[in-house]
């Protein structure tokens, strides 16, 4: 039975995740903080908003919904969530990127809760297509969520996957585009402009909608609706987000993708979070 979502509680959770993400970035400055902060609410909605089915005690539980994090670098915010849910002990977070830890700068499937090897962009959607075929063939009603970056859509292999998913009616795939509008060196629109993204996805026979990627009500409602609808079409949720969300020094910097926060900046950032 699904319980009503307590949005206030979700917001508090998102705030906590943002704080923890900043804290572990302080421990491992080589992690990509800005693109992790844009996706905080998306990960929170998926896991605390009654969207995904999962089992931390059995990460490969057959009935789970799959989450493929194709934009691997920008998911450091998922580490505190996985720890909080019990996939591994919270003390692991303190050892991020250190000898003996499995929490790397770019997450891989050695981390309980991660399904695939990540870090090379453009692979996740095609892998999701294969999983979707297998799940359909054994009549599983599990959904595959794929987290993509907007810059990642430059990769041609993503569009091979987009065409394939539509051709095969893979309505058990929900692609979430973390549309933070920035690549490493510039605004996406100045590099390869794909907006309006709805037109691209619709042209390829995907169902598509756009939401505020920091609004937890919209996130939970939309993802739940996408998950429930088996209409022969794959779904794309364009989540408009802000890269570096919550940290002014990142939000205002076009080059924030590769920015690491200094101790002073980190302190200011944590104080400024509300």
């Amino acid at each position, binding site marked *: 039975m699904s319980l009503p979502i307590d949005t206030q509680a979700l917001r508090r959770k998102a705030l906590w995740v943002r704080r923890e993400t900043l804290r572990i970035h302080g421990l491992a400055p080589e992690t990509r903080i800005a693109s992790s902060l844009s996706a905080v609410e998306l990960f929170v909605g998926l896991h605390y908003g009654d969207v995904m089915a999962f089992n931390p005690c059995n990460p490969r539980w057959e009935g789970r919904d799959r989450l493929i994090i194709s934009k691997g670098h920008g998911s450091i915010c998922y580490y505190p969530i996985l720890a909080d849910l019990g996939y591994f002990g919270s003390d692991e977070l303190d050892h991020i990127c250190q000898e003996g830890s499995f929490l790397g700068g770019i997450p891989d499937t050695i981390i309980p809760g991660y399904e*695939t*090897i990540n870090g090379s962009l453009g692979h996740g959607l095609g892998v999701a297509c*294969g999983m979707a075929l*297998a799940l359909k063939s054994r009549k599983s009603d599990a959904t595959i969520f794929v987290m993509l970056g907007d810059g990642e859509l430059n990769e041609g292999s993503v569009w091979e996957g987009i065409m394939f998913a539509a051709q095969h009616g893979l309505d058990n795939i929900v692609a979430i585009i973390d549309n933070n509008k920035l690549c490493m060196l510039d605004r996406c629109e100045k590099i390869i402009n794909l907006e309006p993204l709805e037109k691209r996805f619709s042209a390829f026979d995907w169902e598509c909608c756009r939401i505020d990627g920091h609004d937890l009500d919209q996130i939970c409602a939309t993802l739940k609706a996408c998950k429930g609808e088996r209409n022969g079409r794959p779904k794309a949720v364009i989540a408009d987000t802000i890269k570096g969300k919550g940290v002014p020094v990142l939000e205002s910097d076009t080059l924030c993708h590769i920015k690491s926060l200094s101790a002073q900046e980190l302190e200011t950032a944590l104080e400024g979070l509300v």
Partner: protein
Amino acid sequence: MISRPMRDVFIETLCNRMTSNENIWFLAADLGSPALDRMREEFPDRFINVGIAEQNLVNVATGLALEGQIVYGYAIAPFISMRAYEQVRVNLSVSSQIRPVNVNLIGVGSGVSYQVSGPTHHCLEDLSIMRLLPNMTVFSPSDATLAETFVDYSIANNGPKYLRFDGKALPQLYQKADRIQLETGFCELIHGSDVCLVSTGFMTHRALLVAKELGNVGVIDLFMLKPLRSDKLHDALSAYRHIITMEEAFINAGGLDSLVASVLTERRSDITLDRIGFNDSYVFQLGSRDHLHRINGMDEATVTTLVNRLRSR
């Protein structure tokens, strides 16, 4: 002697296995084969033409395999091995170190078996680049019987594999009754003395012609480049003074010759090594396969002369 394309025999046998094993899937990048027609008809849900999209073929295969399926990917050799190389590296080689994926990539048209199609369709790099990937199995059969034997091996052995199939029908060399030991990686077809030809794929047929003409020349067919029982190979090579490697691939680039060289040098052997293959240059010339071999020093006469010179040393 029966000549059948290895791809047809392999696919036919696989088709039979698909009847009893519902976990087997076959993905093609819009490449056909007469034997595929039956599979397309009998298993419309598990035969999928992904279109002309080798990168996606590897990605989709990975997703299926991560869900416990046994997957075959079928495309022209240079495209499945090189167009999709990074997908192979990340999703198969890297991934299978943590979560084994049973994905079998079938590259059709090894070497210059598509002889008039030019450098884009020749495949002279695949042995090297597939061999260097950790966790990959690299299989290069010289006839259809070997290819057929690999079907059950590929089902039983989890992990990513690259199958290098000739584009043409080659004469049969092995009998099913031979009890081929795929795990050993090679078979000494002719035991000779002094000089041994170590070959793979199509070139094993060339080696056998040379050996037949000269007599007393050893021939080792090396069909599994990885994993390989290098101790057993070293033992076999130790019976000779001179080794000549023969491959339809670039030499001095990490392929068969490099494999044999490392087996020899690791054990400080004083056996000499000569390498027959394409030497750091693509092939734009047209003509028969024999012609292409002749102008690249890979023909029977060149190898025969080399053997005679080595023998007279």
